[in-house]
């Protein structure tokens, strides 16, 4: 393009517009269009193929009567609450430890963060092996002579979600630690000096001064972790395949099965619409906080 500065806005903007075509298409066709499509077809009785045969809220009624869906939601809430509390608490504590001007900080960080580079499939399979009742932790403790020791989260429907949680925390806490550490580093050194002059003990400074100052970091982390939890899928597929029985089913699995294997599109789309709704519940309050209510999600 040999357009000089004079040859008009049209040509310059034309190039920019051409460059932005993929973004415009992605935003409008996939994100907005795809979402609308899913919501609209969730009100139909589509089976194998999408058909615009509206049946009102039938799919949703059936969804909330399905015991599998209720289990999935219960599991996600259980996993989500514990994962949120633990990732943020552990991530923050580790960041505080790392912020004590320690030596070998890079080494420690490298070790804590490497699980985050791995696929959930890899994480799930490793922990499946470590939690294997015969050869894993349970087997070893029993071999040590404690015959009645029981730790088989992947085979016990009551605690299977905690087996997943162990793996999920292993993978995710290092990442949260890095975010928190960046937040801690962003705090003005003078705050620390002032606290020291006033004779406030370190732990109290963290709790009373630093944590409130890091509110934006906590909120951002919360949103990122929460939207990751709602998508929870790969880890469950690899580690438990949703079992034992249906004990570790999650909503994303329900959606996948109804869309691609059970050939009951309407049902799968209704379930995915519910997932969208749950993300909006997290996202909209955050958007208000972040953008002061100027924009909405």
């Amino acid at each position, binding site marked *: *393009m040999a357009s000089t500065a004079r040859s008009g806005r049209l040509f310059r903007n034309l190039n920019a517009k051409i460059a932005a075509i993929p*973004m415009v298409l992605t*935003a409008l066709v996939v*994100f*907005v269009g795809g979402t609308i*499509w899913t919501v609209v077809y969730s009100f139909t009785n589509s089976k194998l193929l999408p058909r615009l045969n509206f049946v009102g809220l039938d799919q949703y009624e059936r969804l909330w009567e399905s015991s599998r869906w209720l289990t999935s939601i219960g599991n996600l809430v259980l996993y989500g609450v514990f994962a949120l509390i633990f990732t943020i608490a552990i991530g923050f504590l580790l960041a505080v430890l790392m912020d004590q001007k320690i030596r070998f900080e890079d080494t420690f960080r490298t070790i804590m963060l490497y699980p985050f580079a791995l696929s959930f*499939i890899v994480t799930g399979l*490793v922990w499946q092996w470590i939690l294997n009742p015969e050869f894993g932790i349970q087997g070893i403790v029993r071999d040590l002579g404690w015959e009645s020791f029981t730790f088989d989260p992947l085979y016990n429907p009551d605690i299977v979600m905690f087996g997943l949680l162990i793996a999920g925390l292993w993978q995710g806490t290092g990442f949260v630690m890095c975010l928190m550490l960046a937040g801690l580093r962003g705090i003005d050194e003078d705050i620390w000096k002032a606290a020291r002059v006033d004779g406030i003990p370190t732990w109290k400074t963290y709790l009373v001064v630093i944590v409130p100052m890091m509110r934006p970091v906590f909120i951002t982390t919360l*949103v*990122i972790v929460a939207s990751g939890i709602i998508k929870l899928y790969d880890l469950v597929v690899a580690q438990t395949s949703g079992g034992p029985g249906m004990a570790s089913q999650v909503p994303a699995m329900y959606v996948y099965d109804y869309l691609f294997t059970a050939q009951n599109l309407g049902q799968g789309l209704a379930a995915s619409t519910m997932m969208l709704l749950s993300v909006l519940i997290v996202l909209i309050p955050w958007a208000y906080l972040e953008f002061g209510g100027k924009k909405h999600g």
Partner: protein
Amino acid sequence: MADVSMAAMSGPRGAKPKKALSGRNIMLYGTLIVVCLYYILPLWVMVMTSLKGMPEVRMGNIFAPPVEITFQPWVKAWSEACTGLNCDGLSRGFWNSVIITVPSVIVSIIIASVNGYALINWKFKGSDIFFTILIFGSFIPYQVMLYPIVILLRELGIYGTLWGLVMVHTIFGMPILTLLFRNYFSSIPEELFKAARVDGAGFWGIYFRIMLPMSLPIFVVAMILQVTGIWNDFLFGVVYTKPELYPMTVQLNNIVNSVQGVKEYNVNMAATMLTGLVPLIVYFVSGKLFVRGIAAGAVKG
């Protein structure tokens, strides 16, 4: 410590060094080391199990190093492990992942970098609105868009093909990459851009001669982000490709979680390790750039 006597002057000067073995330090480093052991443990178990023969796996302790080191499980995982009727090992998944990852990374980075550049230097009416939609769109669960994209790809005639999957990775990588490039380009002084404009450079001229050479670090960060992200993907691989083109993660899961046959835990762990190797190498080689990539993602989504 200001009034130092003559006798002390001959000794070491400056502030008194802190004791290395203070109670605080023992607590601090002790805790960190224990925490690190927890993080290392699975990697250790994975490697150790993969180097044992099956009899030793059954007899022994998963944490113990192998008595007799064997690479047989690695060989088997790479070239003989079965998924269904196929028994050509994980190597097929590996090469599939390579031919998926390479074009996806290239295409997504080209599109996102040009896009980020247009958003900063060549704003047009509505460009910021589309960008906002893009960022908020990245929070929508993939499950919501899975099926509409199936229809889209089918209409384009690329459902189940390599290019279909490349397109999906480009779409879902776009929010974070565009954000990354947009933020980086906004830190390049505008005077540079204006000077180039005065000299008669156009959209592509400025991009290739000024923006690109000045932003190589951010391209590396984007590559790290995309290589690990796409390599680790499972969901899109399952949904948008056919079994012949399944990426490594999908094949790994099929090998390990298949019900038939005797479970060969050592082969499973070797296969798991093989799949994790590429992102691990990228991670350990890239060091701080990896942290920069994920931190950029956290700035706003």
